[in-house]
């Protein structure tokens, strides 16, 4: 779409106009979010953990993760050399925690992107098209909502070869349904609005209406739900890792807990090995939930002022 020159003035294109409008809406939302003290505190916590994950190579040497060249004595309690003690190989638990944050956050993010993609697509297509395809998609969504997720994740993960992508995919498959339901309900109300009808009357294709009108209007809800979903995905990764279904080749907070469980840290009371990963997960999950709730209040007018 090229802008046309008329009498020396540059007429903004439709796309540019909507971009300006969205920018304004975003800034207004951000101002409203910034006033939320709990949400902002949680956001700072998240920024800290993301920074640790990104800066991991600077904070702890990757060689500290090697089982073969570990310097410490196995299961030694916290000391000045090892602030969080060591594991069964004599590796620094702090180094494991720093590097593990990468995988935990990465799997949380990947799984969430997957769940959001499936959930939004199913919700938008079902809600917008209606009729038989909606009934079918709705039935599938309800099936995934009813089936207990841990047994489902177990049969899926056990059937596929283990790895980061597999674990993310399994979490995405077991957790997209609630998003689909949420998005579908929102689409049902958006598609009745005037601008959708007008766009159709002007000859817009269904694809255009879905991606340019419906999606932007349900996007804020999807975004708030995404942040909440990351919390769920990180918890799910932990649970699957504890059951031995994690990626055997990478270290996450979940696999550290699994290591503590499998290597007898419980029996000898190696609390420095067991406590840090669980506390880190709880803090990050709580922070994601609080940010998600605050976002929800910003973008969801019905919740405002409660």
């Amino acid at each position, binding site marked *: 779409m090229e802008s046309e020159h008329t009498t020396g003035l540059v007429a903004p294109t439709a796309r540019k106009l909507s971009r300006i409008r969205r920018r304004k809406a975003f800034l207004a939302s951000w101002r409203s979010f910034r006033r939320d003290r709990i949400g902002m505190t949680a956001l700072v916590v998240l920024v800290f953990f993301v920074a640790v994950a990104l800066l991991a190579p600077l904070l702890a040497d990757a060689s500290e993760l090697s089982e073969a060249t570990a310097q410490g004595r196995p299961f030694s309690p916290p000391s000045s050399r090892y602030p969080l003690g060591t594991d069964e190989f004599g590796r620094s638990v702090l180094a494991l925690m720093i590097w593990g944050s990468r995988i935990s956050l990465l799997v949380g993010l990947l799984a969430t992107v997957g769940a959001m993609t499936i959930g939004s697509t199913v919700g938008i297509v079902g809600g917008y098209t209606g009729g038989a395809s909606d009934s079918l998609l709705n039935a599938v969504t*309800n*099936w995934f909502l*009813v*089936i*207990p*997720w*841990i*047994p*489902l994740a*177990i*049969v*899926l993960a*056990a*059937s*596929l*070869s283990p790895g980061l992508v597999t674990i993310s995919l399994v979490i995405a498959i077991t957790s997209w349904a609630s998003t689909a339901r949420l998005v579908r309900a929102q689409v049902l109300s958006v598609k009745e609005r005037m601008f959708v009808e007008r766009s159709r009357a002007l000859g817009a294709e269904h694809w255009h209406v879905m991606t340019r009108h419906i999606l932007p209007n349900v996007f804020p809800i999807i975004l708030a739900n995404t942040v909440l979903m990351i*919390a769920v995905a990180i*918890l799910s990764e*932990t*649970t699957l890792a*504890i*059951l*031995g*279904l994690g990626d055997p080749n990478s270290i996450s907070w*979940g696999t550290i*807990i699994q290591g*503590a*469980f499998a290597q007898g*840290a*419980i*029996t*000898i*009371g190696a*609390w420095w090995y*067991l*406590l840090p*990963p*669980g506390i880190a*997960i*709880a*803090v990050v*999950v*709580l922070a994601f*939930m609080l940010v998600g709730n605050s976002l929800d209040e910003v973008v969801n007018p019905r919740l405002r002022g409660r």
Partner: protein
Amino acid sequence: MGRGVVLRSTLHAVATILFVVLFNFFLFRVVPGDPVTRIARAEGLSLEQRDALAAEYGIDKPVLAQLPGYIASTLTLDFGNSFGSGRPVTQEIGERVGKTALLVGVSTVGSIVIGLLLGVYGAWKRGSAFDTGSMTTSLLLYSVPEGWLSLVLLMVFGSMLGIFPIGGYRSTSTLTGIAYVTDVLNHLVLPALALTLAYVGQYAIIMRSSLLDVMGEEYLDVARAKGVREENVLWRHAVPNAVLPIFTLIFYSFGYIVGGAVVVESIFSWPGLGNLTYKAIASQDFPVLQAAFLLTSSSVIIFNLAADLLYSYLDPRVRR
């Protein structure tokens, strides 16, 4: 309650269970590197042994030709033999299902009752120290992975303090009568506590928010004006109306507790279905995994059906 509601809900539940059966069927056969090939490779079986194994599990024929036989054997509860023990899966499950029912039953009742009470008192005394405390605790419990919580309980009360046993469901096989019951209960405390704590938070949170929605309603003022005591306003008028909208939500979360039991049983070596599943993961014991999945899903579906029927009986607005 109309016959239509019962019939429709029941048909829906049956269809959902059938879909689980189909899902199991295709998962076992369509996923690349089918289990038989994997086992054959792992155990170094000859080609003939491999084919015999494939025939045993009925996967030597074209996929769709296997379907009728598969459904027939599933309906007759014939899940084949466990790869691990070689015994019939039905037998393995039969020995354990009661123990899981005990653990899940105690934990479900515990977390619902405690969660709802916390939610009710929190909402009723909104903003009080009790409310803040119980909401903070609930949020924290909700954020903590259930497996880690179990391990912490096991380490503190089992290993360090030695108050409770560190696993299993009984000390020796010789106990009988009262001694046997107390012994099992003693073993039950930690796993049941872990499972209850892991799910109590969500009930407290939804109960509190549902009761807060109701508390501004005028019929509560009417009740007060009639001279109903404050205590009865809460329990006879506010709570029943706050529970109804979250009734199905409460019962639907049964599925989470059943799933959580897999983790908790694995950590406490509680010899139930979850522990069986955990061991089957490590040994790639697909007949056991699939039967356990079918059984847990079906029980959740049936539980939800019961909740739906009970709800349509309780709520006069849908009782038709």
